[in-house]
């Protein structure tokens, strides 16, 4: 059994992956923020370095990147890289 997560992409990660959202599957007992980031880096190695400096939000709440938290399949997950243009 696995959970499917919808990930909203912004700025650089949207540009590189070429989509504004993607779906990621994680096994039920491995559905955590660390595993999600790990899997994203594995599938999209080209965004690895951007992921390092991006903000991760679950249900529009900032998630500390030092803490591994449990995520549920209905959670709205967003990856928000810094934008510096203007």
């Amino acid at each position: 059994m696995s959970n499917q997560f919808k990930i909203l992409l912004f700025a650089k990660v949207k540009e590189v992956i070429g989509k504004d959202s993607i779906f990621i599957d994680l096994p039920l007992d491995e559905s955590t923020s660390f595993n999600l980031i790990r899997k994203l880096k594995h599938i999209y190695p080209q965004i690895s370095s951007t992921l390092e400096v991006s903000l991760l939000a679950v249900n529009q709440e900032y998630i500390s990147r030092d803490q591994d938290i449990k995520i549920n399949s209905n959670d709205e997950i967003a990856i928000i890289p810094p934008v510096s243009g203007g």
Partner: protein
Amino acid sequence: MEKYIKEHTLKPNEIERYGRQLITPDIGVSGQMSLCNSSVLIIGAGGLGCPVALYLSSAGIGTLGLVDYDTVEISNLHRQIGHRESSKGISKAVSLSKTISELNSLIKVNTYETTFTSETAMEIIKNYDIVVDASDNVATRYLVNDACVLTGKPLVSGSALKWEGQITCYNYNNGPCYRCIFPTPPPVETVTKCSDGGVLGPIVGVIGSLQALEVIKILTNNKEGVLSGRLLIYDGMSAVFRTVRIRGKQSGCNVCGDKPTVTQLIDYTQFCQSNYSESAGKVDDRVDKTLIITVEQFNQSIKNNNNNHLLIDVRPKIQFDICSLPNSNNIPIEEIDKKESIEIIEKLIKEKVENNNNNNNNNENRDASDELSVYLVCRRGNKSQDAVKILDEKLKEFRDKFKLLHIKDGLLGWNESIDDSFPIY
């Protein structure tokens, strides 16, 4: 007997001018007085800085400071609505201040035609109540943040690219600073600039207008609603605003935390590995000399030997469609290391080599200059260096069949030195 009672110092002409805003709930006389007595520093007089400055000046902010080292170009005008065609070539700070003075002669504008750096920041910032980050580059964003933390000024920060924008207030009412949220500068290669990725006028217009509104809220003491501890993201393409709750002030933050390691301004160009400007300028060589050709040499060599070369343009298709050199093949840098792309390039090379051999069989005067050349070109000669490295590696088995060269300074160089009619953007 007095003709009327007016227990404040707003003059009749100010009451007339600011009337609609004066009668707006939560502004009133005291709010307007605060605006008129305040000073706001705007870093950047570009896409964001223009709407911020236009709205704040018309709202009657007493003193505005405009910092920008750059001059107005025609390519700015689609989004930088505070400048005019007649300002081409003059300082952006001066140009914007001229527009403002025609809009509202009651306010004072100070212009700083200089780069905001660790050396100039503190002297400028100390005269203002609030700072607006309307800059376009990473190094300036960290500099402005640290300067605001060190001087205790609220910072209204906006940014935009393509169809998207972000805005939040830092260092306000014990909220987080930029470093609390983004402690590490992004690696240079992950940063897309507006000059490469593009940006739309209404996007910077929306974000800049929101920044002006946050300034007005802060100055009129409408604390509750201030966009602090929240990041607003605007996706203009899908017409969605999202607000993400960001973490609060971090006790471990290097500049606003309990034990800050940054207690005075540092060298942000070094910290961020990038300049206090968006403009790219000339690109440094990163590849071996043997892989580089200048636009002049390239021009000469295609004149001498027009058929025996392959020109690969590695710009994104959206840019290639604007204008390209004759006989160029578009293989964007993002795709060049993919199997299909390599196969296409191999096929093109083989065709050229065969063609060449056939011609040479008919012609006894064969020499080394007949060797096939594969040229890589992009806009500025930056990505073509990455492309040359990738192809040098991926085409190892064929490397004795052709010369591989990236065109230094790219199509901008071509426009500058060879053909000034080649459109630049």
